[in-house]
């Protein structure tokens, strides 16, 4: 029995609230497509709803808000390194895109 005392036990109410919230947020992100938002509005709404959903799942369903900071940092900080990879690959992709326009599609139209 001793090890069950370590488990994450919380009142059911919070889970139902988060569950409902996840449904609403999913409906919102689906609505972004249905309502055919375009450009920066579309991208920022997609990102906001995505981050809110991810945050709620990690924080409440995976119990991260109730864990000690030592494990929270050990798990949540390393993925930030991926931001560097993302930035590098975005630069690289931009460069590839420009060279493709230049050599495959007959050059960039000059203004």
């Amino acid at each position, binding site marked *: *029995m*001793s*090890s*069950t*005392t*370590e*488990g*994450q*036990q*919380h009142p*059911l109410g919070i*889970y*139902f609230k988060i*569950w409902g919230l*996840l*449904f609403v947020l*999913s409906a919102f*992100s*689906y609505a*972004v*497509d*249905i309502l055919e938002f375009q450009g920066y509005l*579309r*991208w920022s709404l*997609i*990102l906001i*709803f*995505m981050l809110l*959903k*991810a945050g709620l*799942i*990690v924080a409440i*369903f*995976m*119990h991260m808000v109730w*864990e*000690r*900071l*030592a*494990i929270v*940092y*050990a*798990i949540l900080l*390393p*993925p930030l390194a*991926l931001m560097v*990879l*993302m930035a590098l*690959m*975005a630069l*690289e*992709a*931009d460069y*590839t*895109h420009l060279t*493709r*326009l230049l050599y*495959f*599609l007959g050059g960039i139209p000059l203004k």
Partner: protein
Amino acid sequence: MAETNVEHSAASIDRPDGMQGVIADWASDQRAFKGVPWGKAMMWIFLLSDTFIFSTFLISYMTVRMSTAVPWPPSSELFALHMFGADIPLILIAIMTFILITSSGTMVLAVNYGYRLDRKKTTLLLIITAILGASFVGMQAFEWTKLIHEGVRPWGNPFGAEQFGACFFMITGFHGLHVSIGVIFLLIVARKVWRGDYEANTERRGFFTSHKGSYDIVETTGLYWHFVDLVWVFIFAFFYLW
């Protein structure tokens, strides 16, 4: 086992919190993650490595999508289904998203009832979660079949940039594999809960660990399952909606 558990029991009150707590916990020359059973810590570390795998997939998808000079296939129309006399964009994907969220909810309830030592409800909720997961995989198989019939291949497709197929099959395939493994994992744990392996009055030991399990194994299983849902949140946003 019992003694070590008492000795390493949940975070005690006299430990500092905040940044000082981080340093104190890591420097304590004993167990670093207070209040976290080893199985759960290992699951978290596995999930961290899995995060890197899925992120590299999504970042390579970003790279090829940004660099192609050919228009990207319109995913909203491509994943539309003809229902009720109209083409509803992304409807199958939306249903899959809701199914996965529902299964996350039943999972979190299973964890809770496990700690309440309610064997029946825990087993039932784990089985419901597994069924929802299996239906997700079934819909994914349907989606793959539809796209393959329409001529989408890893090396090309009739709708636009060739890289679409490679990204689609790799990312959703790897996620679907995770869901399938999760369903098996859930069924195994459901069977063990039902059999009473995690009750205090049994000495039944795990096959791999040869240790007696407890209900925090349900929580560890839950972490894996929520992670599968979490990855889908990112795939839904970046692959289907973007």
